[in-house]
């Protein structure tokens, strides 16, 4: 047995471990929610009148649809705000900013990426929510959630875009410049198409982070189970539902929260799958 084979074996074990963990998590969630899915029935999780899981036996209501929509809306809103901002800030940092300012700006974005989510949540609760509340009470709302999430995922988008733009071969740039293209035309015609896979990866990670974020949205979204009619109405996300109630849940209620987790896991799986397809189609 030589060193190569030992290395290969180690790598295989590492990969197997990563895969095994993921599979174990899936199996665990399925096992825990199986009883509820059987006894309550899949359909009732989308058709019950509201979410009142603690009522006496048989009278519980378990509609998860408003929370699924809450997660989708906050995530989509956050990415719609963060994607252009992140891309623009990466372009600024790499092509328009003076070098000193550019590297300072990059450090700042990196710092933003390292701030724990509970800090964002706390800031949102004591600053952002009262600010929105002064305009449109109650303040804790879909809008607050979108804004907080946008700030949180902005660094992911910006740093990935920045790295992707930096990885475009210098030959491309020289060739484009030799053709007499303006800086704007080089960016839109050469750089962005060449950097698209890297930017796409950043967006994908950002979407995953936004959909899975718990603490910050729990603190600023209001957590009312409803399908919001306006940006300033409160929502509850799937993650917030689990975090709010898991420690207090028993019986059917507990099972329904595992179903919530399973739903979230499926949603993220779908998102990853969809964006992988999208990237292949454009790649």
């Amino acid at each position: 047995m030589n060193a190569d084979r030992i290395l290969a074996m180690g790598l295989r074990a590492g990969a197997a471990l990563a895969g095994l963990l993921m599979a174990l998590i899936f199996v665990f969630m399925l096992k825990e929610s199986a009883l509820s899915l059987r006894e309550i029935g899949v359909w009732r999780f989308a058709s019950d009148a509201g979410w009142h899981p603690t009522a006496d036996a048989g009278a519980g209501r378990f509609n998860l649809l408003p929370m699924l929509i809450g997660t989708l809306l906050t995530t989509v809103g956050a990415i719609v705000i963060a994607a252009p901002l992140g891309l623009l800030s990466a372009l600024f940092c790499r092509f328009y900013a003076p070098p000193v300012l550019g590297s300072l700006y990059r450090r700042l974005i990196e710092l933003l990426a390292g701030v724990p989510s509970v800090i964002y949540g706390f800031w949102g609760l004591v600053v952002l929510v009262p600010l929105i509340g002064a305009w449109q009470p109650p303040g804790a709302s879909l809008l607050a959630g979108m804004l907080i999430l946008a700030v949180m995922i902005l660094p992911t988008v910006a740093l990935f875009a920045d790295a992707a733009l930096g990885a475009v071969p210098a030959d491309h740039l020289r060739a484009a410049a030799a053709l007499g293209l303006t800086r704007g035309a080089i960016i839109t015609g050469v750089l962005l198409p060449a950097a698209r896979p890297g930017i796409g990866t950043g967006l994908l990670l950002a979407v995953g982070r936004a959909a899975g974020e718990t603490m910050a949205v729990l603190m600023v979204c209001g957590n009312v189970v409803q399908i919001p009619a306006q940006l300033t109405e409160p929502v509850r996300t799937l993650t917030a539902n689990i975090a709010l109630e898991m420690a207090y849940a028993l019986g059917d209620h507990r099972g329904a929260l595992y179903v919530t987790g399973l739903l979230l896991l499926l949603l993220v799986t779908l998102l990853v799958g969809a964006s992988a397809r999208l990237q292949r189609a454009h790649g």
Partner: protein
Amino acid sequence: MKLAWRRRHVDGGRKYPLTRYQQYLRGPLFMAALLVLSGCGQGEPTAGKLLIAGSSTVAPLVAEIAARFEAEHPGTEIDVQAGGSSRGIADVRRGLIDIGAASRALGPGEAGLTEHAIARDGIALIVHRSNPVTTLEAAQVRAIYTGRTDDWGTLGLPAGPITVVNKADGRATLTLFLAHFDLDAPDVVPDVVVGHNMQGIQSVAGNPGAIGYVSIGAGEQEAARGQPIRLLPMNGISADSDSLRDGRYPLSRPLNLITPGEPTGLARRFIDYAQSPAVHDLVRQLHFVPAERP
């Protein structure tokens, strides 16, 4: 040094290929075991160790008492976890923990357990300090919480939308509040749903039109620390530890430790200690009222 170690490792591998595989597998197996264990919980309680879990209102008090008890009885170890009264009661019944903590009395479906009151607490309505409201009738509270009244103006106060702050499902505070005002959970129309007391207080402190309800202990403590909130009187009786002490406050509740039957050994000693005058200063410090010994 490092090179020598690697060579020995590689040589050894030829002799015992299985052992190395086992080494690689040990990691994942260990992780899997951890996952499974974390799903179902607790280990065997040892002689000098107590596991207490339950109400997030009671947990801070029990944690303080436990710290003092540990200091006075070296060798003992008392773990306190917060997770809701019903969960604490269910866990103690299933034998997962030694003592449960509950911020309410035992219900009819919970016979066979023994409760030991360590303090009294109440639930008070809170509003922003700038809100001029002085008192609310029960009917007005019902109207506000069911969404029939959504503006302070209809109550004869300066106009402004009412933000209703409610507790998330599974909290004893929610259950007691709803029962007191004769409300059904599905009828409540909240604007904000919060988890623990602190989040509720923060939501009211940041919104002049908000109304919520919290444990009197937590509310008094935070108001004393300068949070801009005010505790409203209930049926004309002020919400503070004084009216809790003389038993006049209507929406009060015992803070209980729960055991399966009569406790013995360390659990007995801890409960006796938690009910003794030696911890009354801790009870008062958290703005609760010491329980009368039966």
